[in-house]
């Protein structure tokens, strides 16, 4: 424990170094702006910031992206509360009580509850992240390739079963990602796979190109087709934040606890990010909260539950990312990409090889949560004004960042062509209702999955039953299968119930 505190202290020293602190503040402001603008999502914002980290050392690069990730879960609530415009899907539950409270003339109080929920949820989850990461990494150190393969499979399967309007489409999206990851020269045999004689494909398709193209450019194309028409914004004269009293906080402490715990747990599950946490937490508060009957009428519990959970999910998502190299959400997939880009492979060994970077990341989560609340308290009024900024200009710069991001990675114009191709593919996926997250996670985790699978097969004489007979990998495989089957069972049960009524 003392060792952890010592390293965390060093992490804080690293974060408070002038350059890192400056980068953190920039990350916080960018994250808040991205969350406020309805055309930009949190994941897209982190993707766009990635190329700007190429020239940085790994620590400030990770701090920048983490700060954006943390603050991106917060500011969208402002526009939900003030203008009934959710900046992110995460912030939809904020309409039900946050906006209702604002309509009663209590917008300042609603913003105060949001700030406090983000602060409590963020700090509590960050503490849990620090306490849990090391033990989880120690357990993960005992794992062999079958266990790793099972865990990666579970991560991929949970992304599929969570997202998308069709499970089959989500599966096809995942398989497409896994297949894209196989393009190029195979590591074990040196064989060319799906290169079709094109020289540049021998080096493989960079996950960054897929990520930036599908998430960034694809979204711009989707919005361009709709003519970049933003919704009209209501005029609000005064934006201020009023924090609740200790007595009010004490009366809602269970909502804080529930929201934080749900956010932390949902964050840990690979593939489930802040949006799931926010909706689930609101739903549980509406079902089990002390004032469940008043939910939706503008009560603090309806603000605390989704916001505490959304911010707490950040701490949770960092645990599988750091300890096993498995991203818990879309944004952590990008942060994983940044780690890999700087030659750092997250996993149980990371505490031995690069503990100073890991603890700087941990410290940056604490500082980011406090920093974003301070910025939110003093500058919310200024930041919500970016909603008035024309989307055509923002989008033009988004495209520019996407293109520069693709080019700067390898200084290769073919990557820029590929990004346009994946941009169009991202648009088509969006249009045909294929979720993009499984595609991107498939590209990132595909090589790891294949490597673990092949190594297992070579080590265990092609005996595939080993994945099911070893206790840990068998258990994880069972959970993965259940995770995949559960939506089908749920669907059939609902259909039967509907037919019966």
């Amino acid at each position, binding site marked *: 424990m003392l060792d952890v505190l010592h390293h965390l202290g060093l992490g804080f020293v690293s974060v408070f170094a002038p350059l890192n602190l400056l980068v953190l503040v920039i990350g916080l402001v960018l994250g808040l702006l991205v969350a406020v603008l309805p055309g930009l999502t949190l994941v897209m914002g982190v993707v766009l910031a990635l190329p*700007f980290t*190429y*020239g940085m050392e790994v620590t400030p690069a990770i701090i920048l992206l983490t700060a954006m990730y943390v603050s991106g879960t917060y500011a969208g609530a402002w526009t*939900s509360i003030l203008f*009934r415009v*959710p900046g992110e899907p995460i912030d*939809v539950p904020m*309409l039900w009580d946050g*906006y209702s409270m604002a309509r009663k003339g209590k917008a300042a109080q609603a913003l105060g509850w949001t700030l406090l929920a983000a602060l409590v949820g963020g700090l509590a989850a960050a503490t849990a992240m620090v306490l849990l990461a090391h033990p989880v990494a120690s357990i993960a150190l005992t794992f062999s390739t079958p266990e790793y393969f099972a865990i990666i499979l579970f991560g991929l399967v949970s992304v*599929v*079963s*969570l997202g*998308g*309007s*069709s*499970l*089959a*489409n989500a599966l*096809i999206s995942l*398989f*497409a990602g*896994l*297949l894209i990851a*196989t393009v190029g020269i195979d590591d*074990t*045999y040196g*064989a*060319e*796979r*799906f290169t079709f004689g094109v020289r540049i494909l021998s080096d493989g398709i960079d996950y960054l190109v897929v990520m930036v193209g599908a998430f960034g450019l694809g979204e*711009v*194309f989707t919005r*361009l*087709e*709709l*003519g970049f028409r933003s919704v009209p914004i209501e005029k609000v004269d005064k934006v201020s934040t009023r924090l609740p009293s200790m007595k009010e906080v004490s009366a809602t402490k269970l909502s804080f606890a529930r929201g934080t715990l749900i956010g932390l747990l949902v964050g840990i599950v690979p593939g489930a990010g802040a949006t*799931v946490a926010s*909706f*689930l937490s609101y739903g549980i508060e509406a079902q089990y909260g002390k004032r469940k009957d008043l939910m939706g009428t503008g009560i603090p519990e309806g603000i605390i539950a989704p916001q505490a959970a959304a911010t707490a999910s950040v701490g949770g998502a960092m645990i599988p990312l750091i300890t096993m190299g498995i991203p818990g959400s879309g944004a952590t997939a990008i942060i994983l990409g940044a780690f890999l880009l700087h030659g750092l492979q997250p996993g149980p060994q990371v505490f031995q090889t690069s503990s100073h970077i890991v603890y700087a990341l941990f410290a940056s989560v604490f500082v980011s949560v406090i920093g974003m609340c301070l910025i939110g308290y003093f500058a919310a009024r200024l930041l919500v004004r970016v909603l008035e900024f*024309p*989307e*055509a*200009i923002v989008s*033009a*710069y988004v*495209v*520019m960042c996407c293109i*520069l991001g693709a*080019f*700067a990675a390898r200084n290769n*114009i073919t990557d*820029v062509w590929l990004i*346009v191709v994946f*941009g169009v593919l991202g648009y088509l996926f969006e249009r045909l209702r294929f979720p993009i997250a499984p595609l991107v996670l498939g590209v990132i985790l595909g090589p790891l999955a294949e490597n673990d699978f*092949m190594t297992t*097969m070579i080590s265990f004489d*092609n005996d595939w039953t080993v994945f099911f007979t070893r206790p840990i990998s068998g258990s994880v495989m069972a959970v993965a299968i259940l995770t995949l089957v559960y*939506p*089908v069972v749920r*669907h059939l049960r609902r259909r039967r119930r509907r037919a019966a009524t």
Partner: protein
Amino acid sequence: MLVGAGAGYLYYVAARIQYQHRADTIGPDFWPKLILGLVIATCIYEVAKLRLIGGRRDVSGLLDEIVEESVQERGDAGPEAPAERRPLLLVAGIALTAAYVWTIQWLGFFLATAPYLAAFIALGGYRRWLVNAAISVLGALAMMFFFMKLVYVSLPLGQGPFAQVTFFLMRVMGIH
């Protein structure tokens, strides 16, 4: 059907991957073939489902269900997005972006980027021309300065006389 046919073709390609075979070990074609087999199985399932039970609602992901149920219960998901689509605008945007990627190699970063930004902003419906021009030119210069001077990324210089413009701008910005 289309996805299934594509997967079938790729399976055929995967079956012809050339490598030095080692006894008792699976080759580099195994993993892609496994994935493509799963794609084909998913497509067969979808086609069979459509044939047998028609276009009934798909099994959706849990997140979609949670969101849908909550929104149905509460009845508010924020303002509706505009429903009217403009495919021509989309095609123009994609064509413009492709043209930009094509010309950037000849014109260099600045000469290709400033007009591209201005054209994309205009395409997006922004009609204050002077502001547009200023934002595009200053934005392109700022990007060039940031990436070439601070991040040390070598952006396309252009060819012939266009390269001279880039070199001139680099001299002005102190980029070596």
